[in-house]
Structures are given as structure tokens and as C-alpha cells.
């Protein structure tokens, strides 16, 4: 089964188990996860709107797209809905969506007063439930093909890091060089904002839906003595956020999920103490500042963690 259908099955199972009849998704990461569609990347936060619906009983998907370019063949043209600027058309589409009028629980991945009113109008019996947590829970552990995609994205980001480290110019020039090399290596879309600040360099990208990233300093690979190394070593199944805090009691650090972009869990000194790590999670582990900075993308395995980002960029 193709990767996006495996992912969709995970999402449908999780939503159905929570009693969700219909998903109305507006977040591009969730849409990519369930559809596998390649849609034009745009930066920044988004307002909430109904871009994709998924009927958990029938598996039927409707996707906002005027064309079939980049859309997997299991979503046919008659299940694509063209870009519209007309609120009445949005209403009519949702109202005509089989299963919407009788839905008891409609899941949304974000919420706004206007969109909540619209969904209530087309699904008057339905409870509107935020299901971003359910989807992100399903996404938390990665399929083997997802790990491959993340590893490939890390290799692209590593080329940018290497270029910025090798460039003799100002921070701004080094950053521009890194961005240029990253595009040549396979991604013109950043994940986080790239950073080049004196000795520290950090690049990440979205490549074929998946994020890869790493951070290094001019002095090369991070020594095993740093908190960064202690955190990576602590990324084993069953470890809690509290365990990570014990592994790195001092300094700034962040351990968070990485997949189709930024994902939970979020673990640092403030949040995530009760999170529990599982095998097949992929985590971004960053720690330190300036000369002490390092970040890697790490796969939690049944045994020792596997670093997916190249050690020497």
C-alpha cells in the first residue's frame, strides 16, 4: 500500500475510535498526511477553513484543489473542489457532502467563530470536536517510509549547513549561501527559519512533505559531553519528559517531534514532563547556545537512538 494510504488508514482508525464521523481539516500538514497531495507550499500561519473533508465511515475525501496535478489518483477529479471566493459555494459544498447532514461528531483541526457557525449550519445535529490531538497522536510514530523521507530531508538540510559553515562572508551572506545550496540540493521550502548567528548554523527544510534539519557550529561535530548528547542518549522507549530533564538539568534545550513539520511532543524545562517516548518517534533534539549549540534529528528505536541527520554536514 502506498505511504499516503497507510497514513490515511491510521488517521481514519484513530478518528473512528473517537467516534468522529467527519473530519473537516484546514491545516496543511493534516491534509498532506491523509491525502498525500502535493499542493503549493506557503509560509506562515493560516486562518482556519474547510480545505479537506474525510468521511471516516466511507473513507470518502473531498479536497480543495482546482487541478489534479500533484493529487494522488485515488482522489478523482469529481472529488476535487476548485478554489472559491464565495462563502455561499463553500456552504453548498459542505451541505452536499454525503454524511455531513447526519454527522453526530464533526472533527476540526482548528476553530474559528465563523467556520464553527458554518459547520453547525450544515451539520445541525453534530457536536464540533477539536481532533488535532487525535491526528497528531496517530502521526507520532513513523512508518518506515516516513523515516526514509525524513533522512533524505536531513541530507538536504545538511548541505545547507555545510555551505553556510564553509562560507567566509558575513552572517547574512552565509545564510543566503545556505538557502541557495538547500534549493539546489532539493528543497526551496524551509521548515523553521534558517539561522546563522556567529558560530552557530541551523537549517531545516520541508522536502516531499517531510522535515529534515540539523544545527552545528564552526567547531564541528558536538562533543559527547554536552547536554545535546545526553538528551539524545535518553531518547529511548518509555523515557518521560521528566527523564529528559534529569538527563540535561541545565541550559536551554528543546526536544520535539519532527515529521510533516513541527509536531508534538514538546519537551523542555517548561512543558512535556509527562510525555512518554515511544519507538518509531522522530525527534528534533537541540541544546546549547553559541559555540555550544547543536541540533540533530533522532529516531527512537527499540534499542539505542539512531541519528538521522549526518554527523558531518
Amino acid at each position, binding site marked *: 500500500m502506498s505511504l499516503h494510504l497507510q497514513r490515511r488508514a491510521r488517521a481514519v482508525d484513530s478518528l473512528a475510535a473517537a467516534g468522529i464521523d467527519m473530519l473537516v481539516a484546514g491545516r496543511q500538514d493534516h491534509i498532506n498526511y491523509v491525502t498525500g497531495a502535493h499542493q503549493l507550499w506557503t509560509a506562515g500561519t493560516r486562518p482556519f477553513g474547510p480545505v479537506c473533508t474525510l468521511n471516516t465511515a466511507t473513507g470518502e475525501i473531498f479536497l480543495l484543489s482546482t487541478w489534479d496535478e*500533484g493529487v494522488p489518483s485515488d482522489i478523482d477529479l469529481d472529488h476535487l473542489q476548485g478554489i472559491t471566493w464565495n462563502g455561499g459555494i463553500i456552504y453548498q459544498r459542505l451541505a452536499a457532502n454525503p454524511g455531513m447532514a447526519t454527522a453526530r461528531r464533526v472533527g476540526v483541526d482548528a476553530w474559528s467563530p465563523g467556520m464553527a457557525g458554518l459547520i453547525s449550519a450544515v451539520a445541525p445535529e453534530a457536536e464540533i470536536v477539536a481532533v488535532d490531538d487525535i491526528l497528531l497522536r496517530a502521526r507520532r510514530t513513523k512508518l518506515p517510509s516516513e523515516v526514509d523521507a525524513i533522512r533524505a530531508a536531513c541530507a538536504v538540510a545538511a548541505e545547507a549547513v555545510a555551505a553556510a559553515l564553509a562560507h567566509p562572508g558575513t552572517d547574512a551572506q552565509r545564510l543566503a549561501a545556505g538557502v541557495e545550496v538547500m534549493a539546489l540540493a532539493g528543497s526551496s521550502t524551509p521548515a523553521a527559519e534558517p539561522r546563522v548567528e556567529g558560530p552557530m548554523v541551523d537549517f531545516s527544510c520541508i522536502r516531499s512533505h517531510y522535515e529534515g534539519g540539523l544545527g552545528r557550529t564552526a567547531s564541528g561535530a558536538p562533543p559527547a559531553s554536552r547536554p545535546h548528547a545526553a538528551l539524545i542518549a535518553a531518547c529511548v522507549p518509555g523515557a518521560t519528559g521528566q527523564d529528559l530533564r534529569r538527563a540535561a538539568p541545565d541550559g536551554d534545550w528543546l526536544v520535539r517531534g519532527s515529521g510533516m513539520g513541527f509536531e508534538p511532543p514538546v519537551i523542555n524545562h517548561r512543558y512535556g514532563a509527562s510525555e512518554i517516548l515511544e519507538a518509531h518517534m522522530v525527534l528534533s533534539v537541540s541544546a546549547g547556545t553559541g559555540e555550544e549549540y547543536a541540533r540533530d534529528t533522532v529516531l527512537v528505536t527499540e534499542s539505542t537512538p539512531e541519528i538521522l541527520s549526518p554527523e558531518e554536514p
Partner: protein
Amino acid sequence: MPATADAPALELDVGRLRRHRYAKLQFQMAADGLDALVLLHGPHVAYATDCLPKGADATHASANRPVAVVVADHPQPCLLGGDPDGLPVDHHPAVWPDIDEGAADLGAQLDAILGQHARGGRVGIDLMTGAMRRTGVLSAAEIADAANTMAAVKLRKTVDELACIHQAQSRTNRAMASVYETLVPGVRRSELAAVFLRRLREEGIDANMIDVIFQPMARRMADGPRTTTGHLAFPTWSGDPVYAEDDLIWVDSGSDYHGYASDFGRTWTVGRPPTPAEQRCFERWLAVMDAAYGAIAPGATFAEVCAAATAADAPYRTDGDRPWMPHFYLVHGVGIESAEMPFLGTDNGPDFDAAHTLEPGMVLVLEPAIWEDGTGGYRAEEIVAVTEDGWIPLGGGYPYDPFEVPR
């Protein structure tokens, strides 16, 4: 040729930009009966606080997003998180509204900032994350949709907003000029993107807001992607094509200067002059633009601008359709979003276009598109601002090479 006229001197005064926008927000909140605004969408946060959005993937831009709170009659906005350096804001600690623990923090901070307004007050909000719904953020307030308030304040731009758009466009133009020089047969899309992204940085632009588009157009619609409109597919996700000499490429991009978007659109050939048929499409496009420019004035209805553009291309059309892509518009606005009101010639229909008029301060991106099936087509974009007595170009002057503007 209006589109190549020199743009006016527009000097950004950041202090004035912030004061004008904040005053407009307070005025509109009073008109909408709001006690407070809570804003989570990056461009809205920037409008209220001048804490600028980042050119990051949506998941990253959302994860630890800054939040803006505007309380009625308070002298300056509150900013939760973000970088407050130099901003006239009351700063509060960062929250992570996309995770439950962070949303609970946000709820507690909002209760403290809003005081009695959090209990029974009328609060406009543009978005709630799932975590905010789960943790009951603002559950005791009367919630209104802040989208309406934001749409009202941003419709007519201040002089400093025009200056930002002018800068965004001018800098994007210079970056694109470098890309055009590298476009030769055999070059890949990734190579063009690489030059563009480097040059944007060199022009002082940190945020590229859309994956830059260099789409090779199938000469016949039937050879392109299938569409819901039966018309063109543009702009699509396009992988990493290698360009050949006979390709016709539609270019589109959007970057950000001080929170304001540019919108570059051109049609390029690959290291060759256009064919006579391609040049004819361009001249039809120019005629449509001239007609639209002639119709743009304060008080003109959207329908009048659309009718003028359509009439200019009527000699070439028998099927009643219009010289722009049916899934888009003849004109869209640009500002803190790359496409925002006003929209002219959309699927909102002729009654909508007849009922709405242009007003001074509106910024218009004109993007007619000409198509001759079998030949291909011509599409480009130009930005103008409606003034008290007509319009001025913003960021203009980018050439139409390799197409020739008739004298």
C-alpha cells in the same frame, strides 16, 4: 505606458505605520462593539504589534506563535511571546497555543490581561487552536469573529503600508532580474529557485512566503492537468522540471517586506525571442491592462473595471469568457496577505462586482491572463494603489522581456 511609469517616492515611517494601524484597530473595535481582540494569525499579530511573521513552514510558524491582544481604549497592544525589542507593546511571556499546556498558559494570561472582559465581555478572535478549545480558553467571554474587524482595517492602506508594498515589490523585482539572466535551455527549476532565494536575502528580504513558481505551460489545455473549471491549471506544485528552449514559463512569487507582500508575475521564454503568436498574446494582454488602468478610479465599481478589461479583448473572443483565469480574478488586493480584498471578477458573480466600488487606499494586483489554445498564453501582474483622483503604480518598472512593448 502606465505600468512602467516611475513609482512615487514612498518613505516608510515605522512609528507612523504603527500609530495609524493601532488607531484604526481601536476605531474598528468600537464600531464592532468589541471589548478586546485576541489575534493568533501571524499577519494579524503583525498588524496589531509590528511583531513580524516568519517565513517558516505553517507548522513552525504556529507552534510557538506570538499572540497579540488589543484591549479597547488601552494605549498600546499586548504581545505574548515574539521578540518585543523596540516595539511599543506590553510584553508578556511566550505561550505555545498549539499544545494543551501552552494553551492553558494562554488562557491564564488572557484572564489576567482582559480582567472583567474575560467574563462576559465581547472578544473578537481570529482562530482557536484545538488545544485552546480543549482547555476552555475564553469560555466565559462572548466570542466574535475577528476576521471581520481585520478585513475592515486592512482594506484601505495607509501611506506607510503603500511604502512597504512598494519596497517588497521593488526588491522582489531585482531578485527576479537575476533569475531571468540565468534562464537558459537545460536549467532546472531548482536552480532558478536557488538564485531567487539567495537574491531575496541579498535584497534584505527574510521571508519568502510562497514556493516560487516557474511553471512550464502545456500549449494546449488538454495536455495540462485536468481542472474543475475545464480551464487552465496555474499555479500548480511542479516538482523540478528541466526547461527546454521551446518552453513558455509562467512565473509567480510572493515575498515579504516588513509584513507586507509582493506579488511578481511574468511570462518568460527560455533564451529565445517569443514567436509571433506568443507576442500577439502579450499585446492582447497589454490592451486588457490599458483598459483596466483606464477604468480604475475611486468610485468605479468592480464591474466597470471588469467590463473595460473584457471589452478590450472582445475582438478575440467568441465564447463570452473573460481575459482572466476563471478560478481567480481580474484583480486581487495585496497587503499583509498575498491575496486579500478587494477581489474583482471572482465567482462571487456580477451582482457582487456591481455592488462594490474602488476606494482610495485600496491596493490592486491586476493579473489578466490571455490564452490561445495551441499557442499558449501570456500572464503577468502589476500592482497599483487607488488614490483620491486615480491610481499610482507600486514597485513598477519591471520589463516585459523578452516580449516587445509596441511603440
